[in-house]
C-alpha cells in the first residue's frame, strides 16, 4: 500500500524575498525581483537582466571547513533548508537520531569550475587549487554539502534535469516516501547566479531585451514577451510520510498527491505540446483526480515566445480554460534548476493564504491562448488543489499536484 506524502516544512531564498514571509508578501503584491547586472554588460552579455539575491554570510553559523566546500548554490540551499527544517520542527539532534534523506535539484557549478580552472591556468600547479574546489565543482555539490552539514543518513543524491531539476527532485522524493523506502527527505532545487553560469544561455539570444524596464522584462504569455530573464537562489521542501508527521506532531503544510513526467523525444531546446500534456495527465492519474478538480496551475512559462505558447496549448488540451493560470516567473525570472522547487513553495504559500499570485506584465495574451483563465492581478481565492509545471532542455517534463491537507 502506498504511503501518503506530506509537506511539513518549506524554506526559500529568492530574488523576491529571503524567507517565507517576505516571499508571500511579494507574491501577493506582484513585486518583481529583476534587476540589471552591470557586470554582465562588461562580460559581453546581450541581456544584463537577472534576478538577484543577497550574498549569504555564513561565517557565524558554519565552520571554515564546511564553508570552503560550498559554492553559492549550496549557500542558498543551506539557508532555505534551515528555514524549512525550522518550520518542520526538526532540530539538529532530531535529524541525527533518525534516517533523513536529501534529493536536491542542481544542474551547474559553472563559477566553481571556471574559478578552479583559472587558478591552474595561472599557477600551473593543481596543488595550489585548495581543498574545497573539488566539492564545489561537482553538480552534486548541494547534496554533498548539506548531507554533511546536517549529518544525514538516508538517500543522498542530486537530480540534474535542466530547468525541471527541482520539480523532479520533489517528484523523486514523493516516490521514495510513497513506496515506504524513506520517511523523511529534504527536497528542493538550487541555482547559482553569476555571469559564468548564464553566458552560453545568453548566447542563444533567448533572454529578454527590455533593459530599460527590468521589472517589466519577464512577461510570460504576453504578446510583447521577448525572452526569459535568468534568476536563482534556492528552495527547500521537507517531504515526510503522513505517519511520521503525525507521530512527531509536525505541522502539515500540504500533501503531494501526484507526480507526472515525460520526455519530448524531439528537439534539444524547442518544446512541444504532447510531452508536457502527457506529464500533466500522468500527474492527474496518479493523484486520482479529474482535470476539473484542479483550481490553479502554476505554469512553467518562462516568457519565451514558443515555450509559453506550447505550454498554454497543452494546458488547454488537458484542462480547458477553467483553472486559474499564472507564471510566477513574471516576478522571479526563470530560476532554472531551482524553479520546480521554488514554484511549489510559491504555490503552497498561495494555497495556505488564500490567494493566487499574478502573472505580472500580462497585458494581452497571444490570440490563440486567450481562452486560458489567466490571473494578471492578485486575486483572493481559497483553493484546495494546484498543479505545478516544470520543463527543461532535452525535453524533460515534470508536473506535480499538491493538495491542501485534509485528514
Amino acid at each position, binding site marked *: 500500500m502506498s504511503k501518503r506524502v506530506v509537506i511539513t516544512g518549506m524554506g526559500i531564498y529568492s530574488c523576491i524575498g529571503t524567507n517565507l514571509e517576505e516571499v508571500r508578501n511579494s507574491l501577493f503584491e506582484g513585486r518583481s525581483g529583476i534587476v540589471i547586472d552591470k557586470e554582465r554588460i562588461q562580460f559581453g552579455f546581450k541581456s544584463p537582466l537577472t534576478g538577484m539575491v543577497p550574498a549569504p554570510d555564513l561565517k557565524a553559523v558554519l565552520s571554515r*571547513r564546511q564553508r570552503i566546500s560550498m559554492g553559492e548554490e549550496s549557500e542558498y540551499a543551506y539557508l532555505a533548508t534551515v528555514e524549512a527544517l525550522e518550520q518542520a520542527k526538526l532540530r539538529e539532534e532530531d535529524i541525527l537520531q533518525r534516517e533523513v534523506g536529501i534529493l536536491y535539484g542542481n544542474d551547474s557549478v559553472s563559477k566553481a569550475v571556471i574559478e578552479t580552472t583559472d587558478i591552474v591556468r595561472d599557477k600551473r*600547479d593543481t*596543488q*595550489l587549487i585548495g581543498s574545497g574546489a573539488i566539492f564545489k565543482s561537482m553538480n552534486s555539490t548541494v547534496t554533498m554539502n548539506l548531507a554533511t552539514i546536517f549529518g544525514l543518513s538516508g538517500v543522498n543524491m542530486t537530480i540534474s534535469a535542466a530547468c525541471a531539476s527541482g520539480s523532479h527532485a520533489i517528484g523523486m522524493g514523493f516516490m521514495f516516501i510513497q513506496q515506504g523506502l524513506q520517511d523523511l527527505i529534504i527536497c528542493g532545487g538550487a541555482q547559482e547566479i553569476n555571469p559564468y553560469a548564464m553566458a552560453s544561455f545568453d548566447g542563444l539570444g533567448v533572454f529578454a531585451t527590455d533593459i530599460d524596464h527590468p521589472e517589466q522584462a519577464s512577461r510570460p504569455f504576453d504578446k510583447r514577451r521577448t525572452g526569459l530573464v535568468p534568476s536563482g537562489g534556492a528552495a527547500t521542501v521537507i517531504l515526510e510520510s503522513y505517519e511520521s508527521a503525525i507521530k512527531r506532531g509536525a505541522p502539515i503544510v500540504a500533501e503531494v498527491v501526484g507526480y507526472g513526467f515525460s520526455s519530448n523525444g524531439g528537439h534539444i531546446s524547442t518544446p512541444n505540446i504532447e510531452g508536457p500534456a502527457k506529464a500533466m495527465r500522468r500527474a492527474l492519474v496518479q493523484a486520482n483526480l479529474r482535470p476539473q478538480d484542479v483550481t490553479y496551475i502554476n505554469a512553467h512559462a518562462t516568457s519565451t515566445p514558443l515555450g509559453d505558447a506550447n505550454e498554454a496549448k497543452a494546458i488547454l488540451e488537458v484542462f480547458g480554460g477553467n483553472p486559474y493560470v499564472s507564471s510566477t516567473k513574471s516576478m522571479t525570472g526563470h530560476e532554472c534548476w531551482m524553479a520546480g522547487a521554488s514554484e511549489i513553495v510559491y504555490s503552497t504559500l498561495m494555497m495556505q493564504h488564500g490567494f493566487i499570485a499574478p502573472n505580472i506584465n500580462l497585458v494581452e495574451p497571444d490570440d490563440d491562448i486567450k481562452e486560458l483563465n489567466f490571473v494578471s492581478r492578485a486575486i483572493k481565492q481559497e483553493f484546495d488543489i494546484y498543479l505545478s509545471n516544470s520543463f527543461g532542455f532535452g525535453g524533460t517534463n515534470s508536473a506535480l499536484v499538491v493538495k491542501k491537507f485534509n485528514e
Partner: protein
Amino acid sequence: MNKVSIYQKINEILVDEFEVDEEVISPAASLKESLDLDSLDYVDLVVIIESNFGVKLVEADFAGMVTFQDFYDVVERKIAAKN
C-alpha cells in the same frame, strides 16, 4: 623578511584564513592538535603559504613537523632558499 615578521605573518594567516583562536598558537604547541587539522587542511596550508610567501610546501616538509615552531622553521627555510 626577518624571523619575527615571518612568525607574525604566519600567525596572522592562521587567525584570519584558518579562523584559529589566537590563544592556541604558541611555538611549542602541537600544530595538528591545536588547529584540528585533517588531510584536507594540509592542502590549504600549502595554498595559503604559497599565496602569502611565494614558496611551496611539499609533502616531505610536513614529515616530522610537530609544533608551530617546526612549521615556522620550514617556511623560514623555504623563504631563505628562495632568496
